[in-house]
């Protein structure tokens, strides 16, 4: 299992569109992937789960993955956050 602390850079935070991109990406991996924020832990493959976090810009969340492709998953998801979900230029 690996973990990574990730800062949310995009202005709108984990809103519906960003959450959809995130859960779509997470579903490409076989590892179990979780997001942890404010002691809440949700499955990154679950769109509604991500929405319940209500995480905003400037918040730090923890990405956690365990499984065969955990490293690739964390790297790809971290990259999505760093690219601000491709929504700002």
């Amino acid at each position: 299992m690996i973990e990574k602390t990730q800062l949310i850079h995009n202005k709108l935070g984990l809103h519906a569109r960003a959450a959809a991109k995130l859960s779509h990406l997470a579903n490409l991996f076989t590892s179990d992937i979780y997001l942890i924020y404010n002691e809440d832990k949700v499955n990154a493959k679950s769109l509604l789960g991500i929405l319940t976090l209500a995480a905003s810009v400037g918040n730090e969340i923890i990405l956690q993955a365990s499984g065969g492709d955990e490293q690739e998953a964390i790297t790809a998801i971290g990259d999505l956050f760093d690219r601000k979900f491709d929504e700002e230029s």
Partner: protein
Amino acid sequence: MPKEIKGIQIAQIPELNQLKIVRIFNEKWIHNLVSHPRPQRPGLGLTGYLKHIQSGRIQIFGKTEAGYLRNLKEEDRNRCLKNYFALKLPGIIISESITAESDWIAMAARYGTPILISELHTAPLISRLSAFLYQYFSKKIKMNGVLMDIMGQGVLITGTSGIGKSETALELVNKGYQLIADDVAEFYLDSNDDLIGRANEIIKNLMEVRGLGIININDIFGASAVLEEKKLNLVINLEKWDPRKKYDRLGEDTQYFKILGLEIPLITLPVGPGRNLSTIIEVAVRNFLAKKSGKKTYLEIKDERPRPEEEPTGPEVEVSK
């Protein structure tokens, strides 16, 4: 992960408007923190026995407390009230619109305690207040799965992402059962030690169906298709059919799902082509109800095979006298 909660301000108790509060004295302390789930009636605490009065508990005065205080001589009453309010209580609620005397209010003000007057009788006042506080203070836990009411039973459908939980739930909604929460359900222990599940406010009534996106069940199926909260009775876990795994063929195993110190009956259903999950789940619940009332179908199978001649099973033992 259970969360620790420090307390709630009296003003933030949303149930306050259900408590029929008609007057508030010492209102500037209405933001005092209540840090205990059970309201308390001071009773003997007013006579000076303060050992069990806990400073985080909201205090309830009924006819007994008010009558006792009124019967005391003024100096005794002042001494009692001083000792009592010196505990820095978060707040007093007086039931049945009983008048708060000015010296009670003054003494409460000295130690920063608000006094609220309610129209309710003491018993309903306490039960409404404690039902809310219990929910607020109880351990909460999130679980992945769809929580539904199926034939009056709270059923949590779990399984790995993409196995078809939401699609199955949608079929069940279409059959007339109620959705409580899709994908993530939040549970807390109520005052009866029952596990109560509800949806997070953000995703209440919502369901995600791949290909359709996020849909609002309340808008599409109407208010009778959703429920606010439900006691959890049964967990049904969907998993990929694994031919090497032994599934319950007779229906005699009872497995349990352990959560917050409770054991909830668990049924594992393998998902395979040609299995209509919503019907199987519906029947699983019916069967669960039958089992609950003591029915054991696998014991009722008629066994009419010819039996081998009965032989003596062992040498007879002579009992000597």
